[in-house]
């Protein structure tokens, strides 16, 4: 009842000064709309750019590293401190890129609570041959379902489809660059020759386009079995294990743990892609800085309006105080006014921001590198709308606070004496 009274008085003030109130509110509207549009667009773009690499990158990548063994044969010979043993011309033995006991390892890692998905992969080099041309290439044998679900491989296959790969052991998705160089397309056959001389003839069911030319010029995908067949290895032969986690933050500690536990090389995403994080956060800082500046300007609008209001309403304030309203009551009335203007302006701002970003998201945006992207990327994340309205309320609260506390302190006798 009492609160209703303060709202009634505040509302009356807004209604009787509707034009000024709307102008003040429009400042907030403009600030919030810009914030929403900017942040949706910026983060949408960020997501797209990061997705280019990060989506396709495992959170932890397990493989066997090439390099000399830490314990050389000579170290195993019981050392006699007075003797010198010399072995000249140490050479590496044929590279074992296979992960030892991969199926058991995959099972074990799947049970970690942090782990969302584990995908095996067989990577190998191969030659593409068509007619007289031999092209150097990289073949990845993948678990198609996993790859599609966790690494969005399908988004980068166009034309063609990734589904064909899972059922067909004689199918391949070739890099766009490879296809172009060999002048082949969907439906054509392509010959692969493994380093050991095995040869396979596969049918092209799609082309792969990552957007990075150096990748598209060499990379192709087949299913696990096909890759194993190509290099003449059994089902258990796996060269890489790719892990996705529930929480990206866990990548570094878990990678270290896996290295210790399984004696294997484990690279986490942060180490692999350090530069992406910084780019993203700088773009975000710019967005917030611009929006906060706009809101401060809007805040000054509200501050001005309220100051003018209070100047005009000196008599009203004196009457309210003389008839028993306390300073706190009067202050509340003006804060309510400011925040009502802020809330109304902010809500319209959210709506406008949504309309702007929706409009942008309909504008065609075609880039070679991303066949699945046809319009500008917009991130319609609800969080930004909450941040926006919170911004509006906080800004208007502070803008209203100073004038309102002036009204609270105002002495009614001063006004009465002036008559």
């Amino acid at each position, binding site marked *: 009842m009492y609160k209703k009274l303060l709202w009634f008085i505040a509302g009356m003030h807004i209604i009787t000064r509707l034009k000024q109130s709307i102008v003040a509110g429009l400042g907030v509207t403009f600030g919030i709309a810009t914030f929403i549009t900017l942040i949706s667009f910026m983060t949408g773009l960020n997501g797209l750019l990061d997705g280019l690499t990060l989506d396709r990158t495992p959170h932890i990548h397990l493989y066997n590293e090439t390099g000399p063994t830490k314990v050389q044969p000579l170290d195993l010979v019981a050392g006699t401190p007075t003797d010198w043993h010399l072995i000249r011309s140490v050479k590496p033995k044929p590279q074992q890129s296979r992960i030892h006991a991969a199926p058991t390892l995959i099972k074990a890692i799947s049970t970690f609570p942090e782990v969302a998905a584990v995908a095996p992969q067989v990577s190998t080099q191969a030659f593409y041959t068509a007619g007289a041309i031999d092209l150097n290439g990289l073949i990845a044998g993948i678990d198609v379902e996993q790859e599609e679900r966790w690494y969005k491989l399908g988004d980068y296959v166009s034309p063609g489809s990734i589904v064909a790969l899972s059922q067909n052991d004689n199918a391949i998705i070739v890099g766009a660059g490879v296809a172009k160089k060999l002048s082949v397309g969907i439906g054509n056959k392509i010959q692969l020759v493994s380093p050991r001389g095995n040869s396979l003839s596969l049918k092209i069911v799609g082309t792969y386009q990552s957007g990075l030319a150096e990748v598209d010029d060499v990379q192709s995908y087949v299913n696990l079995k096909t890759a194993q067949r190509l290099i003449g290895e059994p089902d258990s032969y796996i060269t890489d294990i790719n892990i996705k986690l529930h929480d990206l933050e866990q990548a570094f500690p878990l990678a270290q743990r896996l290295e210790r536990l399984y004696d294997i090389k484990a690279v986490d995403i942060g180490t692999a892609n350090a530069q992406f994080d910084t780019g993203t956060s700088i773009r975000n800082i710019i967005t917030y800085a611009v929006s906060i500046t706009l809101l401060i300007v809007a805040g000054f609008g509200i501050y001005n309006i309220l100051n003018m209001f209070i100047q005009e309403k000196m008599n009203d304030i004196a009457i309210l105080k*003389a008839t028993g309203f306390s300073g706190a009551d009067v202050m509340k009335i003006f804060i309510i006014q400011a925040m009502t203007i802020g809330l109304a302006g902010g809500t319209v701002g959210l709506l406008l921001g949504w309309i702007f970003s929706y409009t942008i998201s309909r504008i065609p945006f075609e880039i070679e590198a991303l066949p699945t992207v046809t319009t500008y990327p917009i991130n319609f994340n609800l969080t930004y709308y909450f941040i926006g309205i919170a911004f509006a309320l906080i800004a208007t609260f502070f803008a209203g606070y100073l004038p309102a506390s002036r009204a609270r302190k105002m002495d009614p006798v001063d006004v009465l004496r002036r008559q």
Partner: protein
Amino acid sequence: MGRKSVIRAESINKFFQQPVPFQVLKNISLDVASGEFVSVMGKSGCGKSTLLYILSTMDTDYTGKLYLNDQLITGLQAEQLAAIRNEHIGFVFQFHFLLPEFSVLDNVSLPAKKLGRKNSEVIREDALEILRMLDIGHIAEKKAYRISGGEKQRVAIARSLINSPSIIMGDEPTGNLDSKNSANVLSIFRNLATTEGLTLLIVTHDKDFARQTDRTITMEDGIILP
């Protein structure tokens, strides 16, 4: 008289520092009893308004003691004083001091809504009854800036009555009205005093007005003449 004291002042002193240090009220003591109709007269500038602002608790910058219904109210917090004004003191100013954009009914009802003792239906009925008693029931829904000076003054009186205060103070409430309207306001006060037993303390320059009150306090240069 043996009647209960409504407002009592003991040795009130008031100084202004600007433009030069200057004592406006000098050791003022007075006592208004329940049901009394008291007028205050004196030359312009003798300190009547200043005294009334202190008695009405709006001005707290003074020395001395002030009692309302025999309770000391000097030194209370601003919030407490606001609550006291709301409940116990009705004020009628020289210039009809209304909230111009609010309706007559709202102007009268606001102090009662602030007090919060009654629900809005009852407050509305009470306000309408007072307005009718003052012969302005027909303008209840009009905005306060659309009514005449005499009507405004009666609305201000209605507002001062709404919470059935212990005392009504007026600072030249008829000073701005023509003789017909001021006679009207005077008779309203006179009526309220006799029929409702209301306590009134009214500053006036009008000798005829003062003559019709129960008692007249005369001031001169910050003191009360005996």
